[in-house]
């Protein structure tokens, strides 16, 4: 419990500072004006959405190797957060796109990719909700997550070849240069770090919740069997 408090307090302070810094400390970018500030939130959301997917896929592989419910909790919890953060990344992206391109949605490769992730998460939950037996649910969901994970690189490879991108260069672009000035980079990296810690904290909370549900169900049923 004390451990949990520590995470929570740290995040409260760190994220408050990041939010303040994003609006007051970081200078505005020359070409894109005030709108760049969304970047400090948009990119970390997209990153966490991807991270969730990777964590869920790894947990799924582990579950199929060794059917311990803990692995399934990680996969399930991570997918929940993944869905949340794909939505956040899409919305922040759309707000910015509307300002700059005059259109919130235009199937830019990166929008398409995040949309792809969202679809996978949605399908994953639809599959889970249809299966009653927890072990079967975990097993089939893990298989689906792995198949989706295998399709993912193809998607990443194909999309940019077919659709042209207007999206600003990703942070680490082809020339390997980071196009940000010092202050912006400080805020940006702090935000990336903050969001990553936020993700792991939320993951931890969600897993604790799943474990609690599991223990409660187990206890109720065992009491029922004993009677």
């Amino acid at each position, binding site marked *: 419990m004390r451990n949990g408090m520590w995470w929570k307090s740290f995040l409260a302070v760190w994220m408050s500072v990041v939010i303040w810094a994003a609006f007051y400390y970081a200078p505005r970018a020359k070409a894109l004006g005030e709108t760049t500030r969304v970047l400090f939130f948009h990119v970390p959301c997209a990153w966490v959405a991807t991270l969730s997917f990777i964590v869920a896929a790894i947990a799924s592989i582990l579950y199929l190797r060794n059917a311990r419910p803990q692995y399934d909790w990680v996969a399930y919890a991570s997918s929940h957060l993944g869905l949340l953060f794909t939505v956040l990344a899409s919305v922040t992206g759309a707000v910015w796109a509307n300002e700059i391109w005059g259109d919130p949605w235009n199937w830019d490769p990166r929008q398409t990719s995040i949309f792809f992730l969202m679809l996978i998460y949605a399908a994953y939950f639809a599959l889970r909700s249809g299966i*009653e*037996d*927890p*072990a079967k649910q975990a097993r089939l969901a893990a298989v689906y997550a792995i198949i989706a994970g295998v399709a993912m690189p193809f998607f990443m490879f194909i999309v940019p070849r077919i659709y042209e991108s207007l999206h600003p260069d990703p942070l680490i672009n082809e020339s390997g240069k980071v196009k940000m000035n010092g202050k912006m980079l400080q805020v940006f990296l702090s935000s990336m770090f903050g969001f990553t810690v936020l993700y792991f904290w939320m993951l931890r909370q969600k897993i604790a919740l799943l474990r609690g549900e599991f223990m409660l*169900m*187990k206890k109720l*049923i*065992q009491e029922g*069997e004993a009677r």
Partner: protein
Amino acid sequence: MDLHVENLTQRFGFRTVIKETSFVLPAGQSLVITGDNGSGKTTLVRLLCNLLTPTAGTISYRNGKGALEGEDLRGRIGLVGPYLQLYRDLSAIENLAFLARGRGEKPDAQKIRELLEKVGLKGRGKDPLKTYSSGMLQRAKYAAAILHNPDLLILDEPTANLDEAGKEMVLAVVNEQRKKGSLVVATNEAEERTWGEQHVVLA
């Protein structure tokens, strides 16, 4: 082929159906599984047939050479059970030929005809199973289960849907199997309980 069951446990969700059950069935012996409705007879049978993966514990089949698995095992078990169906759009002969091919054998028309006669389906072999009565379907299942002369024949509710003549057919099959191999019967009928030297009572 000996059957070794050790500390077998099966849970569905949190419900424990089979709890730490162990027994050994040496080759040539017969086992009767009894228990009330919901006590896990069918679950145990499905576990023995490798149709379910146990939550804990092991089921192993061994002969002189060691443990039998996969392909070696699939050809040695025959099962009759209410949840195991044949293809309704195929005839009995087509069903049996399909299963023979699935075991890597060439279907023998003569043998299939004799088998159908033995289970009391003479002359109906070419009709699709959807034209059969439930008793006839049960007879067809027996033909499917003993087609490959299994080392172990497993019968779940052996005489369900059968008339007196059908029960006699089952008795003949059971007696023959007891002479040449192992038998497992899951039943609550008093008469059928006498078919085995060994008993497992599930609670």
